[in-house]
Structures are given as structure tokens and as C-alpha cells.
């Protein structure tokens, strides 16, 4: 009987280890039906960029602000400023940065870092 219980306990320990390995590493819980607030930062940034482009298309700042609140953000202007500066610091595409800078300007969140991206380019004049 002692042999049985010892074997059972050893089996339990080994089995629990295997179970934890499987449950945490090999087959971890895959979340579905997650809220947008749980999005990875990179996807939150992309969503913010999309909303910035949407703002440039329709000029609806209040609507853009409402759409950003889906991300669970309380300070939307601060978030826009942070994302814009992150895009600048990470040398993202200039068109994307400009869209975000224009969006930040709508929230009066222009910073010196953003100033160069407010440029208006125009074709060179002829002689």
C-alpha cells in the first residue's frame, strides 16, 4: 500500500509539472472577445493613426475623440501626443507622422518635437 501511495504522489508531481508546462507554455489560454483596451501597444498606435487619418478626412474631432475612448483612454489629448512623439522618435513614415501631428494640433498638443512635421510642401516655383 505504501508503494502505491508513493507512486501516486510521484505521478502527481510529475503530472502537475507536465500540466503546468502545457497550460502555460504549450497551449496557453487564448483570449477571444477581448476589449480594445487590451490591444497591444503597437495595435493601439495603429488604431490611433487610423483615427487621425479619419479626422483629416472628415474634420470631426469630437467623433475622433469618442472613437479613441474605445481604447479605454481617459486622457485622449495626452494619448495622441504620446503616440505622435513615439512615431517621431521611432522614425515612422513621414505621412503617418504628419497625420498624427495634425491630429495633435487639433487637441492643442503640439510640442517642439512635432514642429518640423507641420511643414507644408509645395512644388518649386519656376523661373
Amino acid at each position, binding site marked *: 500500500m505504501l*508503494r*502505491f*501511495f*508513493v507512486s*501516486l504522489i*510521484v*505521478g*502527481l*508531481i*510529475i*503530472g*502537475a*509539472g*507536465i*500540466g503546468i508546462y502545457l*497550460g502555460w507554455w504549450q497551449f*496557453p*489560454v*487564448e*483570449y477571444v*472577445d*477581448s*476589449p*480594445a483596451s*487590451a490591444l*497591444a501597444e503597437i*495595435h493601439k498606435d495603429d488604431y490611433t*493613426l*487610423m*483615427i487621425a*487619418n*479619419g479626422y*483629416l*478626412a*472628415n*474634420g*470631426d474631432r469630437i467623433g475622433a475623440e*469618442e*472613437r479613441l475612448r*474605445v481604447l479605454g483612454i481617459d486622457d485622449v489629448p495626452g494619448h495622441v501626443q504620446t503616440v505622435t512623439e513615439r512615431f517621431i522618435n521611432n522614425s515612422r513614415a513621414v*505621412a503617418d507622422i*504628419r*497625420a498624427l*501631428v*495634425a491630429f495633435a*494640433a487639433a487637441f492643442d498638443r*503640439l*510640442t*517642439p518635437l512635432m*514642429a*518640423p*512635421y*507641420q*511643414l*507644408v*510642401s*509645395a512644388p518649386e*516655383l*519656376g*523661373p
Partner: protein
Amino acid sequence: MSGYNAADVPPSRARIARKYLRRRAPISWVGAILGLMLGISGGLFYTWSVNPVVEFDTAPAQLNPADKTHYIVAITLSYANDGDVIRAVDRLVNLQLEGDPIQAVADTACDLATSGYADTERGLNALYSMMRFYGPQGRSGCADELIGVPPAAPTIPALAQNPTPTLTPPASKTPTLTPVLRPTASPVQVIIPTVPPQNTFALIDANTFCDVARSGLIEVYVYELNGSVGVPGQAIRARGGGGESVFFTGLKPERGPAYADFQMTAGQSYIIDMPGQSQPIDQPLQAVPCTTPDGQQTTISYRVRFRASG
């Protein structure tokens, strides 16, 4: 007395004897397998239910249906500005929608159109942006019937867009009035303008620069059509900071006939135009702080150029 002779033992007794005589295994396989099964079950229960992996790096495909809808709307709104269909489709693919991702947009628009989403102008505009996305791709949905054909996309002037020169339409011919000679009355000439007033000057560009020596300055240059000859004596208006100021080109000969400048107040925003001769610039020029290349703090300055438009 005779010794033990196996041959004398019946076969059934011999089997029992062998069972007790053979060497016992060090572990109980039944116990070990039972323990293993219980352990794995317990481990999985703990890791899946009690203490699952903390959710992070959630991808768009893992969003709940409502937030997927928000994401789809955002994709089409973005498409409305950048017109990049490949980027929009890439984003839709990341959502791992069932079936054709573009048709999924049409289906989502259909769902929204049948809900109260379209009751607000904001929602309606979002639906229009979705329809402008999937329509040209040959997809359709019930939103097409419920909402109708989307109007042309609104044009919002953006600072980052290249200004397009507006060509002055040719003046239409004014019919020549045949004077009617009457001996008792002088002919009355009524002048009816046949061409609406045109802007004489158009904005070329508005650039920023950061210079301590010229802190918070709006420099304006006004050129002839050829873009190189300055035009002195042109009035420039700066509206903002609770008032407006008019200043003129050519008053600082050392800077050339095209030049005029205006000193901004820090923190204020200004709209620049040439009164009666040009449209105001699209976005206000804001006197925000900036840092010079050598690290000095000052107020940003702008360089605005106008050119005769013909």
C-alpha cells in the same frame, strides 16, 4: 523424509508460489499512472482556470465583435484619407474576419445600417466611408439600399497636403451692348460683372523655422506670377490674439520688396491672408515653443509665401 519436489506440486499452487516468489517492482504502475493523470488534470485546471496566462499583446483578431466593428470603421475612415487600399486590406486581414474581408466590411455596414448607428450624422458618415471602401471593390451589402448612394467625400483642407494651384478660368465674353440713340436721353450703361471676383494671390507654402534672432516672427513674401519678383506695397492681415493687424510688403528694403513680417505673441494663433486678394491660410499659425539646433529655447517662426495667381 523426502524433500520438496516441484513436480509433486499441483500447477495451480505452482502459479501462486511464483507470484509471491518473484521480485516486486519498485513502483506501483497503477499508482504512478493514476497520479500522472491527476497531476496533468490539476495542472491544466490551474493554468487554464485558476491562474491563466495574463492577457497581453492582444491582437486585433482577438477583439470582441463590438470592438472589431469599431476597428473596421477606423480602417475605412483611414482609407478615406490616405486612399491606400492595400494597407486597409492588410489591416482587415489582421482582424481574421471570416470569408472575404472586404465583403465583411459590407456585411458590417449592413449590420450597422439596420441598427441605430446611422441615426446620428457621425454614424452615417462612418457608414458612408465604409460604402466608399467596399463599393469600388465590387462588393455590396444591404447598407446600399438602406442608406443610399454615399455623397462625394468631403474635402477637408489639410496643412500637410500639397496646395494645388487654382487656375483662373478665362473670362467669358461680355455681350456688347448696342447703344440705342435717343435724342432726349443719354444712354445708360449698366455694368454687370460676368466673372466672379477672383483671388489675385494664392498661398504657395507655409514653413516653420526656429531662430532665436527671429523668434515668433511670421515672415511673409509676396511674388509676381513668375515666383521670383517681389511685389511691394501688398497688405497682409494677421488675425488672432483677440484682434487683427495689417502690415505691408516692401517696408524693409533690406529684406527685398516681397518681404513683410509680423511679431506673434507667444501662445497665440494667427490666420494670415491678403485681405480681398487671397484666401486665408488653412490652419492657424501657432506661436508654440521650439528648440533651436544648438539647444536654445525660443518661439517658433513661420515663413509664408504668396504668389500672384494670374
